[in-house]
């Protein structure tokens, strides 16, 4: 049996994958990688939420495998979203540093049943940093098109929003002692997941069709 909160999440991610596939001809490498990321996330969430049925106590190991993969994919997405070469190089180095930190924190936190909160905080910080850099790059090179219909803007906003909430969640979760408060925090986290993947899925809709491409794409 699936977790009741997991089903809407899986549906949203699946919708995102479908929209990404529909728009794949019009999208660039960054959004192709977003589709791959969504597919990987879908598989991870499916396994993580049904692993109890196969006798496993926790699903922490699934996320421990997923995290480095997610770091690589997000870095690759931002590598293609950045226009300046120095920022692309920064994305590569940031990815390497985050992977090293993830590995170290996983080794320190060797128990498969204990959540690697240092690693998760590291990756969240990386994604926030990458999205903030993209925001600053967008400010440096403003284009003529409306920002509100720019898929990259929505993708970056979603990443910034979700992982900022996520980092707060992981920092404060261990400080919460009451179970009711823990449940509330979990619930907020779950709804943030819904919002994040919905915005990512909707950003695919904003990718312009080839016959409607603005000048800079021609």
């Amino acid at each position, binding site marked *: 049996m699936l977790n009741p909160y997991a089903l809407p999440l899986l549906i949203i991610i699946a919708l995102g994958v479908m929209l990404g596939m529909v728009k794949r001809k019009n999208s660039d490498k960054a959004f192709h990688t977003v589709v791959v990321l969504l597919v990987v996330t879908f598989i991870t969430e499916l396994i993580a939420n049904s692993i109890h049925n196969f006798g496993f106590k926790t699903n922490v190991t699934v996320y421990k495998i997923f995290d480095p993969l997610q770091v690589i994919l997000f870095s690759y997405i931002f590598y293609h979203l950045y226009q300046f070469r120095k920022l692309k190089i920064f994305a590569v180095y940031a990815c390497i540093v985050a992977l090293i930190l993830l590995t170290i924190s996983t080794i320190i936190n060797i128990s498969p049943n204990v959540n690697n909160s240092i690693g998760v905080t590291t990756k969240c910080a990386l994604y926030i940093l990458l999205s903030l850099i993209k*925001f600053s790059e967008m400010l440096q090179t*403003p284009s003529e098109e409306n*920002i509100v219909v720019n898929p990259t803007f929505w993708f970056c906003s979603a990443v910034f929003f979700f992982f*900022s909430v996520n980092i707060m969640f992981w920092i404060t979760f261990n400080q919460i002692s*009451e179970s*009711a408060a823990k449940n*509330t925090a979990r619930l907020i986290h779950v709804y943030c997941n819904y919002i994040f993947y919905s915005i990512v899925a909707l950003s695919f809709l904003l990718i312009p069709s080839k016959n409607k491409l603005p000048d800079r794409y021609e």
Partner: protein
Amino acid sequence: MNNQVSTIFFGATAIFTVLVFFIILFVVYYKQRQRAHLLEKKSLQSAFEQEKIISVMEIQEQTFNEVSREIHDNIGQVLSLARMQLNNPNQSHPEAIQHADELLEQAIRDIRSLSHTLNTYKVQSMGIIESTMQLVEQLKNTRQFNTIIEFDNVYPEPKDSHIIIYRMIQEIVNNIIKHSKASEIKLNIQTRNDITSLTISDNGVGFKQASPHQGIGMRNLAERAKLANASIEFNSNSGNGTSIQIKF
């Protein structure tokens, strides 16, 4: 509601508000930058248009001067000579008429050649390569230069800016005729990856190249190249000829 739950609610609301406020602030600031960027782009565009108009006027002025000089120094002289022939009382009548007729024919030829040189429509309809080849043909007919032309079969799409490029080619060829003391003029035209490269070289006296934009003539050519979205490269040394490459 217990204490920790309400703290979480307030904390989450505060974080959400801050994050949404940040995104709204970004959009507002971005729009401001976008407006400033558009204004800057517009002003640059109008400055460019103005520069283009000035340059076109300069080209026209230069052309008028050349036409005036050509009429005064060449056609005017020939016609004056024909008039003198006809008014000369010492010469026998049929011979004077014959000589005057030859001079008038030369004057007509010169006017036709001048008209062809100035015809913009011809350059637009024939294309830059064909027009350049015709220019080379005219050079060949003078029999003063050994003219070599090399080109591959790729023709560039006709554009408005090609008039400016053609006038640049004419000016380069005129400079070779007037100043280079060359015996050979070589033209090489080739297109690679949608970029047409036209190299005009001669075996004349060349010139000292202190800086890439030395001299008014070279500066003019460089400015015109910029206007036509082309690039120009000068390569010359005293006594070793000159090579000028235009890429468009």
